């Protein structure tokens, strides 16, 4: 006979469950939405994931999530200047979307709170798998965000920046975007703030046939914030997505990337840089499904680890049996600049098709001493020379984006990080 025991709840688990009871009456949603919230909190009641769960092995959320702040109705975040000058900004401040929105031709924007209330947002609230703790946390508590619809054939000349800004407490936000048939867009997802916060943020992107999107996640939370984020995308026929993730802050960060190619000819590019400092933990976990034939993906992640920071990259590529002629390449390169820093890389390729090209590689290095000598031999002092080389290591990935305004804007963020942590 088995004796089933539930381990004692952690303070964080208790705080989340109590917060749900307190918040319930304030959460928008029709019957379907509220039922999904119930399911989600049940998942949390059964315990946050631990290292025994494969996909959480390097980020033991149950152990690492030590405190959960209360909701703070007095928190007042303010919109900030966009990463790329001239972008249209859609701000979510302390978990609340704006009533005054910019008018942009070809774009329809709805507040997510309305779509929760009328139940039209319900289908998106389902978890994507059994261990979807971030999805569950977000579904339980999400109160607002945006739904952005970019009409078929629209080509945006300026980026749209979705700002999720916190000033402490808890915020749970969802950002959904559809890019219509043949439409082109650059979306910036800005994650920042200044409080001791718990943030959950789920982004959903649907690319219709022939749509092209560049999605930039710029995460610069303070080292007092826990940031649990998920980016989910479906790529239709001949759709093209370039996802760029920059993690440059946060105390405990998990950024999940869940991408599925559902149409032939779909093309996915992931470029990521993790700038890790202090006593922080940052995890980027990708699950990519090549579900149909003739689709391609490349992933390059570059990490700079300083201080006592710990980083994780898990890259899982599932090539379904039917998905012949898949072309997938993944690389994770880490520059380890401190003896106390740590980075774990776990590539997982599950290939059920027999006519595919799939590869992965990982490196961990220090600064190349011959490079350092070369720069110093031209009169550049050691500190500046190291700075140049570290920046070069990550800038290489940014420069691939091939759009001058975006490259410059991201390098400015990079310089900011180096100025604060160099």
């Amino acid at each position, binding site marked *: 006979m088995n004796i089933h025991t539930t381990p004692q709840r952690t303070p964080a688990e208790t705080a989340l469950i109590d917060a749900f009871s307190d918040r319930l009456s304030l959460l928008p949603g029709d019957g379907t939405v509220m039922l999904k919230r119930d399911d989600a909190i049940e998942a949390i009641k059964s315990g946050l994931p631990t290292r025994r769960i494969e996909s959480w092995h390097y980020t033991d959320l149950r152990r690492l999530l030590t405190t959960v702040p209360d909701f703070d109705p007095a928190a007042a975040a303010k919109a900030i200047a966009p990463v790329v000058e001239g972008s249209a900004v859609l701000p979510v401040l302390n978990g609340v979307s704006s009533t005054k929105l910019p008018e942009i031709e070809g774009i329809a924007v709805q507040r997510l709170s309305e779509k929760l209330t009328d139940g039209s947002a319900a289908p998106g609230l389902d978890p994507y798998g059994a261990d979807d703790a971030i999805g569950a946390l977000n579904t339980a508590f999400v109160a607002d965000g945006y739904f952005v619809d970019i009409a078929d054939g629209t080509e945006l000349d300026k980026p749209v920046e979705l700002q999720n800004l916190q000033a402490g407490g808890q915020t749970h936000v969802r950002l959904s975007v559809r890019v219509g048939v043949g439409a082109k867009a650059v979306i910036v997802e800005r994650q920042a703030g200044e409080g001791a916060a718990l943030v959950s943020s789920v982004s959903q992107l649907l690319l219709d046939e022939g749509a092209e999107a560049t999605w930039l996640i710029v995460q610069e939370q303070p080292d007092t914030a826990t940031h649990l984020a998920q980016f989910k995308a479906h790529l239709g026929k001949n759709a093209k997505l370039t996802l760029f993730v920059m993690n440059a802050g946060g105390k405990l960060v998990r950024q999940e990337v869940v991408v599925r190619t559902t149409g032939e000819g779909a093309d996915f590019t992931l470029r990521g840089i993790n700038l890790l400092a202090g006593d922080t933990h940052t995890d980027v976990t990708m699950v990519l499904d090549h579900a149909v034939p003739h689709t391609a993906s490349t992933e390059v992640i570059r990490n700079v680890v300083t201080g006592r920071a710990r980083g994780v990259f898990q890259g899982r590529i599932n090539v379904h049996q039917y998905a012949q002629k898949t072309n997938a390449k993944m690389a994770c390169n880490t520059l380890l600049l401190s003896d106390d820093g740590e980075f774990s890389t776990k590539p997982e390729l599950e290939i059920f098709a027999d006519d595919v090209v799939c590869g992965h590689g990982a490196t961990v290095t220090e600064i190349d*001493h*011959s*490079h350092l*000598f*070369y*720069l*110093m*031999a*031209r*009169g*550049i*002092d*050691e500190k*500046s*020379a190291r700075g*140049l*080389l570290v*920046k*070069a*290591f*990550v*800038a*290489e990935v940014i*420069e691939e984006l091939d759009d001058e305004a975006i490259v410059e804007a991201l390098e400015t963020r990079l310089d900011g990080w180096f100025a604060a942590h160099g």
Partner: protein
Amino acid sequence: MLEIKNLHARIVDDGTEIIRGLNLTVEAGEVAAIMGPNGSGKSTLSYILAGREDYEVTEGDILYNGQSILEMDPAERATSGIFLAFQYPMEIPGVATMEFLKVAMNEQRKARGEEPLKIPEFLKRVKDAAALLDMDMAMLKRPLNVGFSGGEKKRAEILQMKLLEPKLCVLDETDSGLDIDALKIVSEGVNALRAPDRAIVIITHYQRLLQYIVPDSVHVLYRGQVVKSGDKSLALDLEANGYAGVIGQAA
């Protein structure tokens, strides 16, 4: 300008002594050629002058303008006016060549107490120097030395040397990998830098380069020592008779 006294140096990793009691003096305005067979310590000497950490000086001293440079790191040596043109320049992905040139030039200026260059002035200097060396500006838009051919890398080294205006230039096998046309262009670039207040040390295996950059003195390095010094006729003698004769006398 440069005075090397009884220099002994070894590889840090395995303790192998490469330089074994080397003496050499080069005056301001002088072009000195250092020749020698493979493994005589030529490249090691150039690295030690530039301050590479892989080598350790165990005895003797290197004086530059009367001051010992042994305690100076490579950057300090460079800003004091010492320049090494590398035999194998490093390819550094992600570092833009122009950005690198700007930073390096301004570090030199800072050390001399000058203001950073204004962008138009900087661009003009780079364009002028590139034109002299027959280099395409498009090349300089690439990351530092990345994808450059062997000859392009050597030209890029001389370009840097022109722009940084050093007082002591050390050229390590600058002729290797150059075809005859490139050799002429690079030599003209070096000759243009000859000046009464500047010394140039040319390290080479062959006499070929010295037809274009005529040295004032020639020194033969063997087993980490200068075993013979002379004028330019020594180089011709080596070309005709090989190193055996000179080395035989020394042994």
